């Protein structure tokens, strides 16, 4: 029983990190209707910025995270402006998808050039050791608790922002019908830029938490968590903000539990197998809406 609880907590920890990354994916997809495959690499950039400012320059970790949020936001806006916007009206939606993959490789190789391939060890931004329950037989690390709380806060913030503010309403409008939104006087470019800004700021936060929980930093740090989080976003229903949260947590828990109780080698096969089954039964994901195309 205790080992189940330990695994469950480990799963929550991994899942809440997937969830934060997936929130970034799903925001951008829901509104800009594009898959930003470079999202995982924005996270990596955020990690490196925090690493430089806190570990190398000795800045307070909170200040380092704030700097990373600002710089990642700028990176997101610039990427959108330079690489994605010119292709937004391209004949094939594949053009911008391929560009996103290109941006992903560009960022990875740029980091390789600047920081080198050597693994860097990240100092956790959460110095709190965590709590110990049931006389020490169940340990919950501080970073796990912080990650879960932060992902819940972000979820609430995004929900409020999208549903209660003018800018959020504009995002919803753009996501439903870009042309109509433009006719109603919504500045589509500005709205999409704002979406990217928020998505990239989330990437910096996710980076801080990812690298604190798994403190090894390389130019490829963001790649695999990024893909898993994409899977989580699809599982939860891509475009849905609560769906990303649920998808992330479910994916993390399934991954850890199948590794514990079935096989550490088969875990990934099981996780992706479940994805296939869910998508066959519910093609729109757990919380995805089935929108009928009107002819």
């Amino acid at each position, binding site marked *: 029983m205790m080992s189940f609880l330990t*695994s469950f907590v480990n799963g929550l920890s991994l899942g809440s990190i997937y969830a934060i990354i997936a929130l970034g994916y799903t925001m951008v997809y829901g509104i800009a209707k594009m898959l930003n495959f470079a999202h995982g690499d924005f996270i990596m950039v955020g990690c490196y910025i925090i690493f430089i400012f806190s570990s190398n320059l000795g800045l307070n970790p909170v200040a380092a995270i704030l700097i990373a949020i600002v710089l990642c936001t700028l990176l997101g806006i610039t990427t959108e402006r330079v690489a994605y916007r010119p292709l937004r009206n391209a004949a094939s939606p594949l053009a911008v998808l391929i560009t996103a993959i290109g941006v992903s490789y560009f960022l990875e190789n740029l980091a390789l050039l600047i920081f080198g391939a050597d693994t860097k*060890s990240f100092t956790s931004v959460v110095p709190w050791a965590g709590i110990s329950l049931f006389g020490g037989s169940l*340990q919950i*690390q501080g970073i796990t608790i912080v990650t879960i709380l932060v992902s819940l806060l972000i979820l609430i913030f995004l929900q409020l922002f999208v549903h209660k503010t003018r800018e959020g309403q504009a995002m919803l409008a753009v996501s439903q019908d870009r042309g109509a939104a433009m006719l109603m006087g919504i500045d589509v470019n500005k709205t999409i830029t704002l979406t990217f800004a928020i998505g990239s700021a989330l990437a910096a936060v996710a980076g801080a938490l990812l690298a604190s929980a798994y403190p*090894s930093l390389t130019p490829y740090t963001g790649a*695999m968590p990024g893909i898993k989080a994409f899977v989580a976003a699809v599982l939860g229903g891509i475009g849905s903000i609560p769906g990303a949260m649920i998808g992330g947590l479910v994916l993390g828990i399934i991954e*850890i539990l199948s590794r*514990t109780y079935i096989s*550490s080698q088969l875990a*990934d096969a099981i996780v992706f197998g479940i994805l296939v089954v869910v998508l066959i039964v519910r093609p729109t994901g757990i919380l995805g809406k089935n929108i009928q195309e009107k002819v």
Partner: protein
Amino acid sequence: MKKKLLSIALTAVMAASLLAGCGGSGASGSSSSGDTFKIGVIGPLTGGAAAYGTAVQYSAQIAVDEINAAGGINGKQVELKAEDDELDAQKSVNAYNSLKDWGMDMLVGCVTSACSIAVSEETKNDNMFQLTPSGSALDCVKYDNVFRVCFSDPAQGAASAQYIGQNGIASKVGVIYDSSDVYSSGIYQTFAQEAANQGFEIVSAEAFTADSKTDFSVQIQKAKDAGAELVFLPIYYTEASLILQQANTMGYKPIFFGCDGLDGILGVENFDTSLAEGAMLLTPFAADATDELTQSFVKSFEAKYEITPNQFGADAYDAIYAIKAAAEKENVTPSMSVTEIGDAMKKGMTEISIDGLTSTGMTWDASGEPTKEPKAVVIKDGAYVSAQ
């Protein structure tokens, strides 16, 4: 018009790539220049294993510089050229082809097993002499033109098990290995076989794969629950540094024991080296060894590259001197064709005995496997120290 131009350009590119392909295979028959030995190096100069590739490149360069300063091989100077394979088997074959275009006579490489195996398929066809410093998978030397300096994986796995058993380091052992990597799973298999003959028990053996190497909580938890006093990590240092940190946060402090892949863990920037205190590695090279050869090598390496060389560098340094010894034994000259050099070197390698950095009295048999003594180092006060 634009489309037409584009199609012409594309056609030109395709035609050029066809020609490039011809050039590559055409150059295989003969060695281009007669004045210098051209030795190629292939390894991961960038990417996750760059610490190995650059160590090999730099150390080979030091050996070549020393040999050139002392008059070369058979009176001929040696040229060295390194190509990057980014730890990718396909790119290593591309690297091999571009080195052939350069006029390579002999190959030192690849640094890692998978790349080395991929390239050996090509060197076999060309009868190019290939000496891998650190490709340790069994299949690396399956062709008769390929030799290696390091131990094979089975030898490392069995030697680790013997070392643990004979020195009575632990009676309950956990293993965490990478099942998607031929190096790691190869060591694990022979370790498990040899463990049966030794006085310890493997209480947990858990795998991870290249796609799931972030979270190790489950594998560590299982070793901890099974009461393992020693955790055997036949993996690379990037993952190992994560495992050490995660084990520490979980309050688990066994002895960690690894193979050559763990070499480099102290170089991880910002890594709390106290976590690795007491960890052991089966490796043939310790930079703190007091013999004259090691000291002079470490000194010139540190002077030139401002880092301390690792075992991969030592393997490469020995590889260049093995080539020198074998070439001098058989009077190999750069004017011979690649395949003539290949035949002579195959014979020469089995006739030499090298006192190198990684072992004294190293010899080779026709299978390409070296005969040498296993050594272990232990991490003490943030440095590798020879065990015992």
